[in-house]
């Protein structure tokens, strides 16, 4: 049995309008039909661009956001059915680490009281020795327990965030962009720490990040998200060696690598236009508006399911109607007209009255 089983999970946020009588005028399809499983002791990496629904998926798994449909099973039990005491108990077993450690840590609490609070909430008590062990484990300097979050550097704050997640001895840690606010030299320290803790404590990770190199480095398996859905999933090595989905190909080709020779040789697949709004996702394959391999049949009308291609390694699945032909090279990439996304679309914004000159507005 897998530690975590997510099936057809969806989170749709209503868009409401009106102040007196508010009515729903549409939905943001933040997560729209995601299924995945994570094994005990494994690291599953979730990548995708801004707004594709990574954080919402992570929060829905931890029941911090109510899913619109679908199920989450943790250790064989349906999380949605948990209430009260049972939910609190289950919560101890899955913890979250956030991108911005400072905003998730109460500035008025010392590290010691932050950790104690976390433990108390789950009926655990930690003596000073246990707390000291924790801050040592995450590599914080001596005397850290008495200090306050603002007295630490960004990397150290992230270590506090990790210590707080660890203090309740969880099984699963959902780490949402755990290193993206950090300088690269410090990012490496935190990544090393995460993998050491996993080896020592047998932790299971769901790591969410937009940096493909980071995800590849830490993950056993990787899922690529686009507009609320997973478009490709594979063991990390396979995904990077043989990307099958057009979006994965484009994403990988876009990552700059610190190697001038590789950069000189590289052929980029430049995607035209913007990411469509999740409030008005394209029909059929959600990538079809930007896909250089799009075909006249099916792409715009039928949503492709995740499936394994013939001869592909176990666990390598892709959601593209034409993946075989693309892999065989029988259909070639073509030019795509850029479609623009109106940021304000669907959200009524009152622009100022059309001004006749810059000077007029600035009063110059």
């Amino acid at each position, binding site marked *: 049995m897998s530690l975590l089983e997510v099936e057809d999970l969806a989170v749709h946020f209503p868009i409401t309008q009106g102040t007196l009588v508010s009515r729903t005028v549409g939905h943001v399809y933040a997560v729209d039909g995601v299924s995945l499983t994570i094994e005990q002791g494994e690291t599953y990496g979730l990548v995708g661009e801004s707004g594709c629904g990574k954080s919402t998926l992570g929060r829905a798994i931890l029941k911090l956001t109510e899913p619109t449909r679908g199920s989450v099973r943790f250790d064989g039990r349906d999380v949605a059915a948990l209430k009260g005491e049972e939910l609190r108990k289950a919560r101890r077993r899955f913890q979250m680490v956030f991108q911005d450690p400072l905003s998730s840590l109460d500035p008025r609490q010392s590290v010691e009281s932050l950790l104690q609070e976390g433990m108390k909430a789950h009926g655990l008590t930690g003596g000073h020795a246990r707390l000291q062990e924790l801050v040592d484990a995450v590599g914080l300097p001596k005397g850290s327990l008495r200090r306050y979050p603002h007295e630490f550097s960004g990397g150290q704050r992230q270590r506090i965030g990790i210590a707080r997640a660890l203090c309740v001895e969880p099984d699963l840690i959902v780490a949402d962009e755990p290193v993206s606010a950090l300088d690269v030299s410090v990012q490496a320290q935190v990544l090393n720490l995460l993998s050491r803790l996993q080896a020592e404590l047998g932790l299971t990770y769901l790591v969410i990040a937009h940096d493909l190199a980071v995800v590849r480095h830490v993950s056993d398996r990787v899922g690529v998200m686009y507009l609320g859905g997973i478009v490709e999933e594979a063991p990390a090595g396979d995904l990077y060696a043989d990307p099958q989905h057009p979006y994965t190909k484009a994403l990988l*080709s876009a990552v700059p690598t610190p190697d001038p020779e590789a950069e000189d040789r590289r052929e980029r697949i430049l995607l035209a236009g913007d990411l469509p709004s999740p409030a008005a996702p394209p029909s059929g394959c959600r990538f079809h508006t930007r896909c250089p391999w799009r075909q006249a049949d099916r792409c715009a009308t039928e949503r492709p399911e995740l499936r394994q291609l013939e001869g592909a390694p176990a666990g390598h699945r892709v959601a593209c109607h034409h993946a075989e032909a693309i892999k065989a090279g029988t259909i070639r990439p073509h030019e795509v007209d850029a479609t623009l996304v109106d940021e304000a679309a669907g959200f009524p914004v009152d622009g100022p009255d059309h001004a006749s000159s810059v000077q007029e507005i600035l009063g110059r």
Partner: protein
Amino acid sequence: MSALLEVEDLKVAFTRRGEPDSVAVDGVSFDVQPGEIVGLVGESGCGKSVTSLAIMRLLPERGNRVTGSIRMDGDELTALSDGQLRERRGRDLSMIFQDPLSSLNPVITVGLQITEVLTRHRGMDKKAARAEAVELLDRVGIPDPRRRLDAYPHQLSGGMRQRALIAIALACSPRLLIADEPTTALDVTIQAQILDLLKQLVAETGTALVMITHDLGVVAGLCDRVNVLYGGRIVERAERHELFRAPRHPYTHGLLGSIPRLDGPPGEDLAAIKGSVNDNLPWTSACAFAPRCPNALEVCTSVTPAPVEDGRFLRCHNPVGAS
């Protein structure tokens, strides 16, 4: 060939009454040749933005002291009056920032923001300016440019805003463009579009570009020469292939080792640099990197390493590969 921009011994200190000065840029010298792409790379707080703001004279009016020489085409920019410099800014040198939303005026249409530059600096009339603005938006890859002229900044996506900002910066065909983290806030596929655009514009127009970034990957594919900054100083400078093939400064070396690679061995520990930039702020003398440096010698904590120019520029008492 004479340099387009020469920065020599630039120092910027922030002053606050009752407190010792804090030195953000400490003797930075570099030059930019016409049509060249030069990188300034380093981690948070190393002085990249302050250096570029000092060149553009965009630092706050009070509370700082700028010394050193900044020459463009041999003219000393620091000797110009504010009015004279404003005249050159926009015409000869121009800048784009990380967050286009904060550098675009939110209540003015994109079109008006471009035409204003054209009428003011290039003396065009309204009609000609509008036609030129359509050209410019088209050139930076904004689809349906005529319609987009009437859009407000918030109606454009992040990538399109950055394109609009580039169009404004290019409106007067400057010979030098300074870009401060222009793609840091963007998604990687959009970043690829913008980097491609910048490269293409440099090739077509001959504009020189100073690219400021913390991302060594961006520099590797884009820049002709790369300056690596640490603690307000340039610690190493080399042609990009040279720099990445054989980094000599322990900081450059460490930085390259700490980046996870798409093609690297997964799972293995990264060669992280110990500590963080904050460990030794403010530093007073000697090598700012010393507390984190695996190569540090005793002298590193007492004597500032002198700049050495032998094949490449280097500031280090004990560089990598020296015996």
